[in-house]
């Protein structure tokens, strides 16, 4: 992508400098994969490898959860972020899993991510935060913004052309469509989805909000739920996962992307986002780390339905 040429050069230079100077112990970014349409995560600790860094419209992976590997480490790591990724970093900061001293966030302009066929990902069409919500540095002229905003930086025009954010108003369409169904239809739909789950936990592993040291689905000790992939246990897993990230999900869509069974996980997350907004007022997780997530606070005049 020609708009990103200079950004790529700058990324490599910056990474090299950061590693050479010892400012950071490692850098999270992407590299070109085996196919032109594949841009996959890369972690480098060696300045010599900085030239492998690459960033384009296929760099869909959100790297923020990888920072958890170093959560009890004093050394600093640099991470390149798109708008959606930056919210994952804020998630980790707010959850106190990393400290600002442990991470150097470098914001990038997002051209809108595309699939192999070159069409814009739905999540990008629905994107409200194409710009980093926080960054220590930025490349490509992108502007940091804690408000929903239009794409900025060198790819702003390209992003606008492919329609980044153009369907932000319709983010809840899938939720609304399901809400319109009968209880029996919903039950059948979700039963089918839950039955597919193989409990690989890929969704959890990639999620910046799933940052527990010990996940309740890994420990048998308390016996919350069986590890077997039965419909019952899968439903328990799906709902519990959703409730654990309720009000904390940063809407990056990685869980659904990595699901090998194509379970519409984000539909559940979006449903919760929608209800949280309707019940407790507007809230975007992973934007402002000083605002406590909605389930960690209350208003005495919250909606009352339990009378």
């Amino acid at each position, binding site marked *: 992508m020609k708009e990103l040429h200079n950004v790529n050069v700058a990324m490599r230079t910056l990474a090299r400098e950061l590693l050479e100077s010892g400012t950071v112990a490692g850098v999270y970014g992407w590299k070109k994969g085996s196919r032109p349409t594949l841009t996959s995560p890369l972690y480098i600790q060696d300045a010599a490898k900085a030239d492998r860094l690459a960033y384009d419209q296929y760099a869909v992976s959100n790297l923020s959860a990888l920072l958890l590997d170093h*959560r*009890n*480490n004093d050394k600093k790591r640099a991470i390149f972020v798109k708008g959606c990724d930056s919210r994952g970093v804020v998630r980790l900061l707010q*959850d*106190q*899993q990393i400290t600002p001293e442990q991470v150097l966030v470098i914001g990038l302009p997002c051209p809108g991510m595309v699939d192999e066929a070159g069409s814009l990902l739905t999540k990008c069409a629905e994107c409200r935060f194409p710009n980093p919500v926080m960054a220590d540095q930025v490349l490509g002229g992108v502007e940091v913004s804690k408000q929903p905003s239009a794409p900025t930086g060198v790819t702003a025009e390209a992003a606008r052309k492919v329609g980044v954010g153009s369907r932000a108003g319709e983010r809840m369409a899938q939720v609304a469509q399901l809400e319109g169904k009968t209880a029996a239809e919903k039950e059948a739909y979700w039963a089918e989805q839950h039955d597919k789950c193989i409990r690989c936990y890929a969704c959890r592993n990639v999620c910046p909000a799933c*940052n*527990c*040291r*010990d*996940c*309740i689905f890994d*420990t048998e000790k*308390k*016996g*919350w739920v069986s590890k077997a992939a039965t419909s019952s246990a899968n439903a328990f897993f799906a709902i519990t996962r959703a409730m*654990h990230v309720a009000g904390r999900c940063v809407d990056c869509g990685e869980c659904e992307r990595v699901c090998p069974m194509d379970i519409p996980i984000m539909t559940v997350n979006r449903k919760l986002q929608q209800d949280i907004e309707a019940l407790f007022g507007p809230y975007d997780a992973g934007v402002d780390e000083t605002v*406590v997530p909605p*389930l*960690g*606070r209350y208003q005495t005049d919250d909606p009352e339905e339990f009378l």
Partner: protein
Amino acid sequence: MKRIGVFVCHCGSNIAHTVDCKQVADEAAAMPGVVHAQEYKYMCSEPGQVLIQEAVKEHNLDGYVVTACSPRMHETTFRKCAGRCGLNPYMVEQVNIREHCSWVHADKEAGTEKAIDLMRMGVAKVLKNEPLKAATIPMTKRALVIGAGIAGIQAALDIADNGFPVTLLDREHSIGGRMAQIDKTFPTLDCSACILTPKMVEVAQHPNVELMTYAEVESVGGFIGSFDVTIRKKARYVDTKRCTGCGACIQKCPSKVPSEFEMEMGPRKSIYVPFPQAVPNKPVIDAPHCRYLQTGKCGICKKICPTDAIRFDDQDEVVTERFGTIVVATGYQQFDISAYEEYGGGRIPDVITGMHLERLLNASGPTSGKIKRPSDGKEPKNIVFIKCVGSRDEAKNRPYCSKTCCMYVAKQATLLKEKLPASKSYIFYMDVRTGGKNYEEFYRRTQVDYDGHYIRGRVSKIFQVGDRLIVRGDDSLLGRPVEIEADLVVLAAGMDPQHDARELARTLGIAYDAHGWYTEAHPKLKPVETQTGGIFLAGACQGPKDIPDSVAQGSAAAVKASALLTKTELTGEPMIAQCNEAMCSGCGLCVTICPYKAITRQPKQERIHGKMRERMVSTINSGLCQGCGACTVACPSSAMNMGGFSDEQIMAEVDALCQR
């Protein structure tokens, strides 16, 4: 597997009437883990308890279930019973087959079935019970009262009379608070100073009371039983040990400053006591206004002082002291009328507040009790009172009623009529609220005997034309706008929390509402307690209050504080949160949700991949935790658990109920 006993109580026929107790016992005996099951007429009776104790010994029980009445009734009984035979009291569960079963169901078959389910639930739970022990925390037998207004004075006196040492702290250099500024008190019209001054002297002379004036709380650490309070004693520039309070320095001081106590309607000196009856009656130097401290020239006070008490090199002193309990009595401040631009925003000299009028009425005030209006010293004829200024006004973010204004306006109108018989008081009100003993009667006298002219409506605007004030209001009873040409307007300014109330609350770790009033633990049943153990509230810091209410609350808070001080140590709740530090990721979600601030993130040293690392984990203060369990649900990894109501116990109960 644990060895469990089950004891089925008949409660006479109360239970046995609808529940086949024998069947319950039989079913129990068949359960895995149950080694003994027995029924008896009255389990709570002495023979019943003996029976349990013998069974515990005989069958070597690890725990037992009593199926009987409500645990709210006899849980303590059966726990103590266990304690007497060497069993940990928390290895006992009681299930309710009376209130929740036999009394509410007539069908014996259904009743028995339900009783069996509940019994199974109890057995399943007790199999997961762990012995619990309450932590004890030492009690420092000393109280701190913050704020020495009438509520704080009363609280300090009562604690001291109960025999405990108490420190009474105020940031001003005299105690007395707002009440000292007030002229006369409703509804009796006795002079405020006449009833307050004796109390001020009494508290100052009480052997159990230490006065700490001109001092502020900087930080509070610790918890109930041992609060470590850091206090800044501000520099007074006067050695109180040498000073005799003769007042020579005050007389000779050449620098005059508007007196805060007199609402800036009269002067004070730079070395001053705020009012003549001040306690302690020893002056301080107001450094920003002192000529010597600012310019190095003057020093007259030092020259004239007969006891050489002036210390220009005095410094703030910071001390940390330990107290077992704290009473917060920081009071209120008068609402700042500058928010009411439509009433001149404080710029019109003859538009004053209620407290200004108190000082004008007071014989020792700036006008020696003569009613002179501030602009030209003229005696006013037409006086307008406006109520609910900074009260019941959502647009000014003061939706609440300040509670005292209706009465103080009635009082002031009465006093004005006494002082100026030719004057006329017009009182704009929305509702007249006179709940209180002899209050309504007082209001009636203001209207009937003292010619108070009440007009129902709010005033929209006041503006000045020449030396007159044009007051435009609505008479909603008449249905027409009205205009009054007034000489003096008194805004019945409401009560605000102290400007720094929130800051102090955060220091103390107590809750406050949207406006900054401190929140009591329960609006009805715990009116002087806070959510933080060992900290109590007295007076207007909790919400607008008049003098009688403040005094009553001061005494109430003192009783609560004294009750704590009688103990040498406090026993905590045994059923409290427990953190599994190995699982805890230190995210702090539990910290924000805990109503008692019992959870803190603490560093934990740990060997990770062969290296010593430090990571943060949640730590529970067993003295503060009350066992609500909110943290257990906030914790996604369920590192947080709760003794007596653990995840495992509750799951076992659910399983037992369902898997029949």
